[in-house]
Each structure stands twice: as structure tokens, then as C-alpha cells.
């Protein structure tokens, strides 16, 4: 647990840092303003005073960097590493700790501000996609747990249920919050690639068309018959495969298993999570082939590993709340998490 505690304190620290940055900005502005005033009082013109004040104060950007380093602020990479750790814990551990870890991964606080914070850091509106105002995040909610600890990512059985039974939503997307690394064997060498396992409807719901070939389909992602197919990211296709459309229909050896390339994603689309930038997408259920030892994540309701987004049929706040209530009616799992929490996808 000590690693979790470390993570917790770092997350708290991160929130505090964001505030510390703002406070420091304010202090610096005021200091420079006072210097300007002083130089003006000594007879300088306003622009002269501004220049002199800035010279006297020194380089603000450098100073800010130094302050951050001094405070031990995390770089985005480090922050992301922590979050990935949290997500991995979620996939592996039973809910008791999963709830705690999620709280850590999500940041602190007890209200929707938390989610805004998460949005800003982790989830971003998909690039080059229209209708993002219809996207909502969906979380499992255990009303008995207090605050943010009551919110969980989805487990697979509950996701599948909601995906198949939703009437008010056009559809429900899910993807692996952690992402996976896969070794690509080619021409006698191996290279580590990042794969995001995503539900088969990811591209169609986001109205994303393949640049070449096709995108993933719901048929690729059937739990009884997962297909070993991948959709390449545009940068990967361009940089590693020379933008050759001939790769469609060919196989890539990933972790020693053959996956067929079915298409290439649009150039602007880099996934829904900051910092992941997958090299390719594979059907959620194809995870079984990648992680044969971790199959219970498709049956275990205590295995919370899916980030879920819904697409509303129409944008609008009122409809959003009504649906929220009707979703509360189904007990979802042994974990007592029975309701869902929706929030708008970040639009900044």
C-alpha cells in the first residue's frame, strides 16, 4: 500500500501545485507592478518603467521553472506514469482498493470539479470529431461510498450490459484506461508499440472514417469471437510503414501473435486519453489474445478497468439528467456500485 500512499500524496501535491502556480503568478505581477510604480515616480515614462521593472525582477519564466522544481512538481510524463499505475491497480485489484486508487488517480475533491480536473489532465475532446458536445463520461457509482471514492471505471460485464440495453444513448464506447505495450516483431527486430484496446463502436460512434481500409466494427469486438485485427494510427502508418496502403490485409506480429491490419485511423485522431497516443487500436475483446492469463477481467465485476463514454442522441442538459435517473434502477454488481454518474466530456 505504500506506493498507493505515495501516489495519493503526489496527486494531492499536484492539485496544490496548480494553485501554487496561480498564487505565484499573482505575487509576481504585483511585485512588478510595484516596481513600475516606483520607476514612474522616479520620472520614467510608462514603457521605460515597465522595461526597467522587468529587468530588475529578472526572467519570470526561468524563475517559475525554478519554483516548480523547488516545489517538486511533476512533469506531465511523471504524472501520467502515476495515473497509469493507478489504472493498472484498478485492473488487478478488487474493488476495495480499486475505489481508493481511483480516487487517487482522479485527483481529490468531492464534487464535479474533480472531473473537470481529470478532464483537463486525462481526457480530451477527440480531435477532428464532430458532435463532441454529445459525449458524456460514464462512471459506475456506489452511492454508499463517500465522495469521489464512490466513482469507478467500468467492469466489462456492466459495460456490455449498458451498451446493449441503452435506449437513450446512441451508444457506449469503452477503452482500456491503462493501455498495453506490445512487441512488434518485424524484419528480425522487435519494437515496443502502444496499443489501445477499444470497443468496436469507437470509430463509428465518433464518426471517424478510415483513411485507408476500414475502422474497427462491433463484429470485430464480439466476446464469443474476438477478431485479431488492428487499426493503425496515422503517425505510425506514415512513419513506420511509409504510408503504404499495401499493408491493409497484411499481418503484424504483435507479442508473437498475428494481427491483421484492417485500416488506418484519420490523421487527427490520437485517442481519447492524454499521453497514450496509441500506435494502433485493437478490439477490446482481443485483449484475451494479448493477456491470456488475465481473462477474468471480462467476467469479473470487481475488475474496473474501462473508461466509458456515452454519446447522447442530442446535446442537452435536461435529457441528460432524466436518463441518469433511469440508469440508477439496475443494481450492477456484487460491489454495490449500482448507479452511474455522467458528466460532460471536456470541451476545452
Amino acid at each position: 500500500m505504500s506506493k498507493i500512499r505515495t501516489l495519493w500524496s503526489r496527486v494531492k501535491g499536484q492539485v496544490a501545485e496548480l494553485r501554487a502556480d496561480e498564487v505565484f503568478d499573482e505575487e509576481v505581477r504585483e511585485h512588478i507592478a510595484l516596481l513600475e510604480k516606483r520607476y514612474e515616480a522616479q520620472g520614467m515614462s510608462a514603457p521605460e518603467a515597465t522595461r526597467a521593472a522587468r529587468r530588475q525582477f529578472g526572467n519570470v519564466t526561468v524563475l517559475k521553472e525554478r519554483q516548480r522544481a523547488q516545489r517538486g512538481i511533476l512533469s506531465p510524463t511523471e504524472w501520467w506514469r502515476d495515473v497509469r499505475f493507478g489504472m493498472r491497480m484498478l485492473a488487478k485489484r478488487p474493488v476495495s482498493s480499486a475505489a481508493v486508487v481511483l480516487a487517487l488517480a482522479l485527483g481529490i475533491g468531492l464534487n464535479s470539479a474533480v472531473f473537470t480536473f481529470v478532464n483537463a489532465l486525462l481526457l480530451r475532446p477527440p480531435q477532428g470529431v464532430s458532435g463532441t458536445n454529445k459525449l458524456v463520461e460514464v462512471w459506475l457509482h456506489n452511492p454508499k461510498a463517500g465522495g469521489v471514492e464512490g466513482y469507478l471505471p467500468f467492469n466489462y460485464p456492466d459495460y456490455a450490459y449498458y451498451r446493449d440495453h441503452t435506449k437513450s444513448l446512441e451508444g457506449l464506447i469503452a477503452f482500456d484506461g491503462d493501455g498495453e505495450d506490445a512487441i512488434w516483431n518485424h524484419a528480425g527486430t522487435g519494437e515496443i508499440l502502444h496499443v489501445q484496446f477499444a470497443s468496436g463502436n469507437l470509430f463509428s460512434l465518433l464518426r471517424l472514417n478510415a483513411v485507408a481500409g476500414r475502422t474497427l466494427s462491433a463484429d470485430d469486438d464480439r466476446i464469443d469471437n474476438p477478431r485479431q485485427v488492428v487499426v493503425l494510427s496515422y503517425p505510425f502508418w506514415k512513419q513506420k510503414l511509409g504510408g503504404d496502403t499495401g499493408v491493409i490485409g497484411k499481418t503484424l506480429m504483435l507479442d508473437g501473435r498475428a494481427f491483421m491490419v484492417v485500416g488506418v485511423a484519420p490523421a487527427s485522431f490520437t485517442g481519447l486519453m492524454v499521453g497514450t497516443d496509441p500506435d494502433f487500436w485493437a478490439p477490446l475483446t482481443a485483449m484475451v489474445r494479448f493477456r491470456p492469463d488475465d481473462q477474468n477481467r471480462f467476467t469479473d465485476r470487481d475488475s474496473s478497468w474501462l473508461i466509458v463514454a456515452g454519446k447522447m442522441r442530442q446535446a442537452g442538459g435536461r435529457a441528460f439528467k432524466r436518463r441518469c435517473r433511469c440508469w440508477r434502477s439496475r443494481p450492477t454488481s456484487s460491489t454495490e456500485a449500482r448507479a452511474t454518474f455522467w458528466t460532460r466530456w471536456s470541451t476545452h
Partner: protein
Amino acid sequence: MGEGKSEVLQGTLDLMVLKTLYAMGPLHGFGIARRIEQVSAGVLDLNEGTVYTALLRLQQQGWIASKWGTSENNRRARFYSITKQGAKQLERETENWERVAGVMERVLGLERQG
């Protein structure tokens, strides 16, 4: 750097800030910079921004505390004050400084032998 000006030695700024707060009571960053400027009579070449790095360091050690107040511009500003621990640290550092300064004086005063 202008002629006749000296750069602030690494580590000495913290001591200067601590002493300033000890002597003057709560001050904001601007006030501290002014006081140091005044005392140093223009000899020190101080990037005033670095005062804030010193303030952060001191605060992390628990040697100073801060709270919001109002600046001469009638705007919000953070005022720093020395804590009890800070006063003790100041005592220690002052002794240490005097010792080091004494040694430096003797070393620099060495006559050439032979």
C-alpha cells in the same frame, strides 16, 4: 552587471531574507527586495525574482510563514514573517556565517611566504 556590483552568493540570500524579516516584521516580497537594496546601498546585484525562490525554500523549511494582506497598490499580496524555528535558524546561521567569514578573512589575509 554594473561596475562595483557583486552577485549574491549562493545561500546568502536566504540568510538575508531571514534577517530582514526578523528585523522588520512581516513584509511582502517587494518589501524584502527594497530593504535588501537599501541596506546593501546598491552594492548587490539582485534579481528580485530570486527573492521568491528564497522565500519558498524558507517556507518549506518552516522558517517563515505567509499570509495574505494588502499591498501599497491596494491589491492582494502575500506577507511573510519569521517563525520561532526561523529565529533559531537565523541564530545558528549567523554564528556559522561569522565563523566562515572569519576564516575567509584570515585566508585572504595570508601573506606570501618565502
